[in-house]
């Protein structure tokens, strides 16, 4: 029997069926077809071991890390519209965002709290993978990719920390990047230093000896372009390997 109503009619149009080749699945065959024919759902196989989708196996932590990354992408792109990365404008742009832009404060809050949450989620995900023993062969290298993702997540958060250009941002990043000045050999304060303050590791990071306009633009580019481009590449490999290695490890 053909279902009636405008929605049902739309779902029968030639255009709709050209986009979604299967409708809401009605039988076992379509349940599998819908996963196979959609590029996003196709991250998954068509069937999974029942044991591996229990909540306690993953606590959804890898997926939550991904979700938070997506939230950060969306809110981050919107923030970019209102934000200019120069010492004269950055701070007032944030003030205006909060005071003038509709839902600007909410937008900023969402981005900020998602960022903190993502760091927590990724660490928790790593811990759960460890405690499940899910880094053993054949998953060793996927764990290594995960470690890179963790480091990038920290850098993503740290580079974003500077952008509001308030006292909190400025001094947190000063404290953090001062560490680079004490690196052995390549930091001017470190042991066996072979460089001066103008050419050491910190200067490369900041584009100068102190956090200033050059540091702000560097952090901005890293935060908005470099790291967000590299991370999805690594995630693609990460997810591909999760599947190829047999999905979430679960003892039956």
């Amino acid at each position, binding site marked *: 029997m053909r279902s009636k109503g405008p929605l049902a009619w739309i779902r029968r149009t030639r255009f709709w069926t050209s986009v979604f080749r299967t409708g809401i*699945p009605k039988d076992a065959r379509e349940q599998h077809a819908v996963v196979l024919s959609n590029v996003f759902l196709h991250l998954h196989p068509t069937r999974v071991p029942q044991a591996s989708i229990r909540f306690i196996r993953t606590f959804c932590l890898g997926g939550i890390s991904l979700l938070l990354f997506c939230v950060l992408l969306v809110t981050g792109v919107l923030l970019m519209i209102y934000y200019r990365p120069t010492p004269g404008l950055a701070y007032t742009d944030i003030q205006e965002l909060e005071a003038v832009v509709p839902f600007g404060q909410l937008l900023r809050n969402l981005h900020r709290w998602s960022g903190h949450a993502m760091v927590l989620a990724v660490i928790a995900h790593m811990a759960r993978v460890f405690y499940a023993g*899910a880094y053993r062969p*054949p998953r060793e290298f996927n764990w290594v990719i995960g470690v890179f993702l963790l480091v990038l997540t920290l850098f993503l958060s740290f580079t974003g920390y500077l952008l509001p250009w308030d006292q*909190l941002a*400025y001094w947190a990043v000063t404290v953090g990047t001062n560490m680079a000045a004490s690196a052995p050999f390549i930091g001017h304060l470190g042991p066996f230093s072979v460089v001066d303050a103008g050419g050491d590791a910190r200067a490369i990071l900041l584009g100068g000896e102190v956090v200033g306009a050059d540091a702000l633009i560097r952090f901005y580019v890293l935060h908005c372009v470099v790291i967000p481009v590299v991370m999805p590449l690594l995630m693609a490999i990460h997810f591909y390997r999760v599947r190829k290695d047999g999905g979430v490890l679960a003892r039956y």
Partner: protein
Amino acid sequence: MNRVGDSGSEFDRHADGGRSDDVSRRVGDRLRGMDRSAGADRPSGPSRPWRELGEVQPVGSMPDLPSLGPTVPVWPNLLFRELLAVLACLLVLLVVSLLFNAPLEAPADPATTPNPAKAPWYFVGLQELLVYFDPWIAGVAIPLVIVFGLAAIPYLDPSRKGEGVYTFRERPVAVGIFTFGLVGWFVLILVGLVFRGPGWAWVWPWTHGPVHPATEASGSLPNVVGVPLLLAYFVGGGYLLLRWIREWVGLGALARVTFVFLALAFAGVVLKIVLHLAFGLRYFVSFPGSGFSV
């Protein structure tokens, strides 16, 4: 092959029937999976309608299919759970963002240094380590070793025990070390975030001003004592540890040396913190000229 008999050590991969060999065979099977007669080992016909849709073969995506137990279709079982998790997370995020505003302090002023100036919370643990170590150790060496050590974990743990379940009993050494590190990391963060005031002096969060004035630990060992002590720790201790873990079948020479280095570094950090807190120890060795002090 089995040098320690049936001791059942956590690091004795042969004690559980050589599963590591299974793994390489499984991977080999997977690579050859293409020319297996398609699905000969699986029922076909109407009961497995997805067959004809080109389902990824189990050799490709699910090694050990039988031991993984019964499978269910991803739609709706997994996708429904994911949808639920997404909605729950978005709801929490939205509520938190409506309730709490992101901080925005006074505009950046290079001339006014707040005291204390704290790093973002996930780096405050490293900042707290500055109490015990010079910046090149706390801020450069230790983070590098942590990241390297994390990445090395799969290559240093040849055991096949306790996979796919949460267990302490089956792998006490691995779980013990990791948990100690993880908890330690967050304890350092907590201390740095909550209990450190101006000059990084200890404060109780419910009082005003530092309880203990910031003190510089001054007691350093003379180099004639410190240098041999450090050498003894890393060379002598390394030798003994290496001999001890030779019993752990399944680790190559490189992996053993790496493990010993990481173990000594980790224990060394803890040791130094304890000695600092107990005796005010500042340096084992100190060469002010080069800035190399440990």
